[in-house]
């Protein structure tokens, strides 16, 4: 698993390669919080290359979204495959997040 970050037109885009689970969620959290502290306000997490997410991974997304909103920013998600969508629907977290089909869709409407 690894995380890659790039900036696209003022949006911090984080790619999650591999699993987002209890063993590594802290890394993602720290990365995003560092950017938030550095003044960034628009965040997109791209799951195109993500294997699976567990409840800890979902929890990190919920708490990041909250922290970003508290600073007047926004977190969006993109490229959830069918399995990941099922997880968000089961847990009703699909009602909490702005979930775009593609990275471009998420970026163009920020």
């Amino acid at each position: 698993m690894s995380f890659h970050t790039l900036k696209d037109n003022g949006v911090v885009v984080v790619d999650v390669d591999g699993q987002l689970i209890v063993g590594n969620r802290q890394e993602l959290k720290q990365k995003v919080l560092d950017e938030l502290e550095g003044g960034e306000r628009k965040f997109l997490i791209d799951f195109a290359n993500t294997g699976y997410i567990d409840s800890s991974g979902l929890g990190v997304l919920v708490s990041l979204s909250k922290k970003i909103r508290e600073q007047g920013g926004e977190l969006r998600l993109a490229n959830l495959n069918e399995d990941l969508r099922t997880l968000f629907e089961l847990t009703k977290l699909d009602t909490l997040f702005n979930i775009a089909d593609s990275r471009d869709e998420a970026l163009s409407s920020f």
Partner: protein
Amino acid sequence: MNRGSASRRSDADASGPEHFVLELPSDLRVIEAAVGYLVGRCRAASFQGPRLDLNFRVGVTEALANAVLYGNARDPRKTVKVEVSLEPNRVVVSVADEGTGFDPGSIPDPTRPENLHAAGGRGLFLIRNLMDEMQYNERGNALRMVLLREVPPSRTGRASG
């Protein structure tokens, strides 16, 4: 010379009903590798598709995480034992920790509006919804989960294909 151990290892190659075991240190870093091993064994027995990639992977990850974090409270002297039976139509996974257990009946529903913004509390819910059966022993330190290979008509979770 540890012949006992050596011969036990070669028995593992004999075919028959698939039964396999892991005994793991209480360390979150082993979870991904352990789940990878179990998924590999299932796949080799031609169990595949979203029931393996989603339901099995996430359900087993949750059970292992709870065993390490809560059951064994990351105590470096304790292990987590995983036993898997791969049967023709289903897979049975037992995850046992060395903790004092808990009351799984007392866990709130994470999909209620007042819980939706909580960072935690979705693990047991996911196990319950992704697996076809789940049951703790009386003490609450051993969880037995059953996943059917094919989607049963009226259950939550994705259909194959």
